[in-house]
């Protein structure tokens, strides 16, 4: 009985976190975009507009749920739920600290990739169910984009997995710091198991993973449908893409999914490449910075901070780069990122065999 109660509590905690992060994310996004464009952003509701997102949520909750007459009612109603739940389920397998993981799965990263692909189905359902040409176009673009970019992202992830020899995210996290069970070598030569810190992160254990990380980061932008890969929503062409017809709480769910997706892909990136919950501070002689700053509380802090940095980077990218054209998008994916990801995977194999 207690077991079930605990599971429900964990799920509720994760949902609360996702919802709170979304409010923060929306506020941060609006402020960042405003500052980049020399504006102030929301200022009226609450001190410095801090209650703006809550006001918006209240507004959305009150709105009527409009289903277009010609829409496929079942698909239309189900789609936002599927989109959100797919992303939300992904959080189950992410480790937060050395001893804190909602669900310890030995195929963690595989599970996350699988569950995230369900989102595509939800988007297609939303686009098709709306019975609106803009929604359908947006959904088709979105699906084409997500399916394409899963390939370079997948291969970038595989190149990490070949180095770490495990699909378990907690195991991958442990290897990138002082808690590692096996030897950790900086750049493949210098043993740094005792030193830990930033030197033991995956991108420094095998420097070609920096390229893999960049590939993963670009692909993750595309998978969460954010600029410069926001052709599925392309407001100048498609109104709002697949969620054109949605109102009220259903629209809020789609939004919630987008921002949780941002956090999810950032966190996966941090776990795979940037040392997960490990501290960036190394042990220097008698100053045992890494030992002092490793632990459950520190772990949560580090992984949260690193993910927020990546999200900041995502926002910065969004408000700097213009949108890709459809052909450029596919060009980048198939002709640049996919071959590079293959190359990374090849180097990973050689690295594992000869240097580790």
């Amino acid at each position: 009985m207690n077991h079930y109660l605990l599971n429900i509590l964990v799920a509720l905690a994760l949902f609360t976190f996702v919802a709170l992060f979304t409010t923060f994310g929306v506020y941060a996004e609006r402020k960042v975009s405003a500052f980049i464009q020399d504006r102030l952003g929301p200022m009226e509701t609450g001190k410095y507009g801090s209650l703006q997102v809550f006001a918006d949520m209240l507004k959305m909750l009150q709105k009527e749920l409009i289903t277009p007459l010609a829409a496929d009612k079942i698909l239309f109603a189900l789609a936002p739920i599927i989109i959100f739940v797919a992303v939300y389920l992904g959080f189950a397998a992410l480790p937060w600290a050395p001893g804190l993981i909602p669900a310890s799965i030995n195929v963690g990263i595989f599970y996350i990739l699988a569950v995230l692909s369900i989102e595509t189905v939800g988007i297609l359902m939303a686009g098709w169910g709306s019975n609106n040409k803009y929604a359908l176009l947006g959904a088709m673009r979105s699906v084409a984009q997500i399916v394409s970019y899963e390939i370079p992202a997948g291969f970038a992830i595989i190149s990490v997995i070949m180095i770490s020899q495990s699909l378990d995210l907690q195991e991958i996290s442990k290897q990138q710091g002082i808690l590692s069970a096996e030897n950790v070598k900086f750049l493949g030569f210098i043993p740094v198991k005792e030193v830990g810190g930033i030197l033991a992160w995956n991108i420094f254990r095998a420097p070609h993973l920096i390229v893999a990380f960049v590939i993963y980061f670009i692909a993750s932008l595309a998978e969460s449908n954010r600029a410069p890969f926001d052709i599925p929503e392309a407001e100048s062409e498609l109104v709002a893409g697949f969620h054109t017809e949605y109102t009220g709480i259903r629209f809020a769910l789609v939004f919630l999914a987008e921002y949780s997706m941002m956090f999810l892909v950032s966190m996966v990136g941090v776990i795979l490449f940037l040392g997960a919950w490990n501290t960036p501070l190394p042990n220097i002689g008698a100053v045992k910075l890494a030992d002092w700053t490793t632990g459950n509380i520190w772990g949560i802090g580090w992984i949260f901070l690193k993910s927020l940095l990546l999200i900041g980077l995502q926002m910065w990218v969004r408000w700097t780069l213009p949108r890709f054209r459809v052909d450029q998008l596919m060009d980048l994916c198939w002709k640049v990122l996919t071959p590079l990801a293959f190359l990374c995977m090849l180097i990973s194999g050689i690295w594992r065999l000869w240097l580790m």
Partner: protein
Amino acid sequence: MFNNIINGIKSAGKGFNLTLKHFLAAKNSREVVGIQSDNYFKQQEGNVTIQYPHQKLPIPEVGRYQLFVEMDDCIVCDLCAKICPVNCIEIESIKSTEAIGQTSDGTTKRLYAAKFDINMAKCLYCGLCTTVCPTECITMTNQYDKSVQDLDLLTYRFSPMSEAEAEEKRLALEKQQAEKLAAKQAAAQKK
């Protein structure tokens, strides 16, 4: 091919640098100073938002915004209504039975303004009416912030006369004209 890649990275870097610079400059806000200030064009950095109802840019005292008529100086010549390109001024005049008085520049007033309406919703702020006015009684003021709940409130009524007063003046005029006519007829009969 590698040149392309390097150029791409370089130009993307420039873009990121630019947005980062603006992001970091956001801690500076533009000072709310008017065009008279020497500093007005020098504030190139930081955010430019003026939070309007809370902050207002000072405007020159001689600003040319909404129209105002000083009725004591108006001789009801109707020139402003005639020159107005959008016909936003409506004037109805009544001849007075005697000279009413003088404007501040010494012109004698002989007409009552029964109606002097300016529809600010139609006005295009060209200022032609202020230039043709012989007594310079119609002017533009520095008042620009006038939002109303009812469209009718945008019609400014400058005439100081009430409907009853106007009617009284009309009757007086009719009476005087009738007397004049009678006098003329009497004079004609005498001949």
